[in-house]
């Protein structure tokens, strides 16, 4: 690569990121606008944030959204990881591929269809729409994501390791807890975070299965936006954006920490205890 090429490359990257981030910054910028809408910046104010924090309905919805995300991701991670283990254990290639395809179909099918089918299912079964139905549907669409993240890691695992563990006297539970789980743990974590963000993001599926008394953030913002743009939503978006930045930075720092700890361990050499 020549110098010129890297220069163009950098410019391209800067441009791409600028386009991607521009709308967000635009939104955040106007959250401080003392005017009524986004048609012109009139002056700086915190007032939209004050109304936001005074809006207890919205606060509750934020908490509900996080609760659904945390819970659904947790359950989906457990079920999905076990499912990946199950698919991994299937000896016959055809059956395994079939299971994997079934999983992938769920991944790629449009949210609208999934949402509609859940709605039909829940009403047919006489289940009341609300927190439970939203949680259940989020768990359901998160499981394939977890399976898809955990399975490759399992397939990377050398099966000889399991033979070795058995040879050293490990029973099935010990093999799972001391060999397989530690090995796939990174992918289980990424599975959890993926499921978490999918749940947080989701609009289409949730829109179908929320009842009257329950809403998540995306559904609420949608219904409010229909009644006209309100800068309180901008303030909320700014806070959400800040939250994602904190998440990413936290993730980065955690990575840094584990890596440096590992390097330190290597340098020290001798086992101390």
């Amino acid at each position, binding site marked *: 690569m020549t110098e010129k090429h890297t220069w163009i490359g950098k410019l391209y990257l800067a441009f791409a990121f600028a386009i991607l981030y521009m709308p967000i910054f635009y939104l955040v910028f106007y959250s401080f606008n003392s005017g009524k809408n986004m048609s012109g910046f009139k002056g700086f104010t915190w007032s939209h944030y004050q109304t936001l924090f005074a809006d207890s309905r919205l606060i509750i919805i934020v908490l509900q959204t996080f609760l659904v995300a945390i819970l659904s991701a947790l359950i989906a991670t457990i079920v999905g990881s076990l499912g990946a283990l199950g698919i991994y254990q299937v000896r016959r290639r055809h059956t395994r591929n079939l299971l994997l395809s079934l999983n992938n179909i769920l991944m790629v099918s449009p949210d609208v269809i999934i949402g509609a089918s859940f709605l039909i299912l829940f009403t047919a079964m006489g289940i009341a729409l609300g927190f439970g139905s939203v949680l259940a549907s989020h768990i359901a669409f998160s499981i394939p994501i977890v399976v898809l993240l955990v399975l490759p890691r399992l397939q990377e695992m050398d099966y*000889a390791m399991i033979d*070795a563990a058995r*040879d050293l006297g490990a029973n099935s539970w010990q093999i799972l807890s001391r060999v397989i789980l530690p090995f796939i743990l990174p992918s289980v974590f990424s599975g959890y975070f993926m499921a978490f963000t999918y749940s947080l993001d989701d609009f289409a599926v949730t829109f179908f299965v929320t009842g009257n008394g329950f809403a998540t953030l995306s559904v609420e913002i949608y219904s409010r936006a229909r009644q006209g743009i309100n800068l309180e939503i901008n303030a909320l978006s700014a806070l959400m954006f800040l939250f994602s930045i904190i998440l990413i930075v936290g993730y980065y720092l955690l990575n840094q920490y584990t890596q440096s700890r*590992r390097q330190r361990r290597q340098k*020290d050499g001798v086992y101390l205890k």
Partner: protein
Amino acid sequence: MQSPETILELQHIYKSFDDFVALDNINIKLDQGKFYSFLGPSGSGKTTVLRIVAGLILADRGKVLFDGQDISKLPAEKRKVNTVFQNYALFPHLNVFDNVAFGLRLKRMPQDELQERVMQALKTIQLNGYEDRMISELSGGQQQRVAIARAIVNEPRLLLLDESLSALDQKLRQQMQYELRSLQQRLGITFLFVTHDQEEALAMSDEIIVMNEGRIQQSGTPVDIYDEPINHFVANFIGESNIVPGTMIRDYEVEFVGKRFECADAGMRDHEPVEVVLRPEDITVTTPNQGKLVVSVDSQLFRGDHFEITSHDEDGNEWLIHATNSIEDRDKVGLSFSPNALHVMRFGEKEADFDRRLSEYEGDES
């Protein structure tokens, strides 16, 4: 028939993978506290036997007896056997210490005893100071030694080693052979050691089991196997040899390359077609007049402690000779050998018949 010191017995073991017969009627008896080597070419089924003994796969037919108890169906984790795997199979998410400690932790050994045992094992394989390394940060030979430590630290009654010194350089390899042998004698562990390397097998073993194509060809002490191979395959596989077709004229007389020679073997039919083995180092070079055979030399290679000489006789048979000196006159030299140096092999003789015949004529031998 079960003698009290027999630790492991395989009876009529068969194993197929799809249509491929990997093991064809394997019978083995291992005595407590001895060092056994399993020798055979690649794909002959050595690893498969070890996996059946360890319980990682089940035989299609046959029995595995441990201390006289049938353990054929016992799962691997319940067997008092540990394995050093051919591909090491170390745990990549654990460091060296935790890898070696894996088995002891499962047994819930107290921390200070565990610490001591692991350190001792690491010292045996000369990797003390590497406890905190991750497996990916070790060389191939170091990983192989960790695999050895992870198995020996458990002090099993029977240790299975699958080509466990193959990744080491000559010097380290010899040190490890020495360490393993002394460990085996100190703890009275029975070793079943798979190797490609016949010199290693000859040097370390109390007994060698030679395998080919899923069958056991011959088992016996290194000296027995070397001096009295049962068939062409064993003679060829263990050490270097000259093998020529011949005819057994009568007891103690064999004919090959058109000449008759006195030999030490007997108990065959008269005029039975046979093969004759003559080891290169049992041949001495003399003048054509004094030699039993006359050959002309094709090439001479200096091998450090001997010259490796290839030659051929009038009929075109090749003869390999190990001599201490090189040969000046390459055209015509005489080869001489004692009757004891000739070993006669029958075609298709079963090991049991072979052993019986040998013991019958043992008094007349050597």
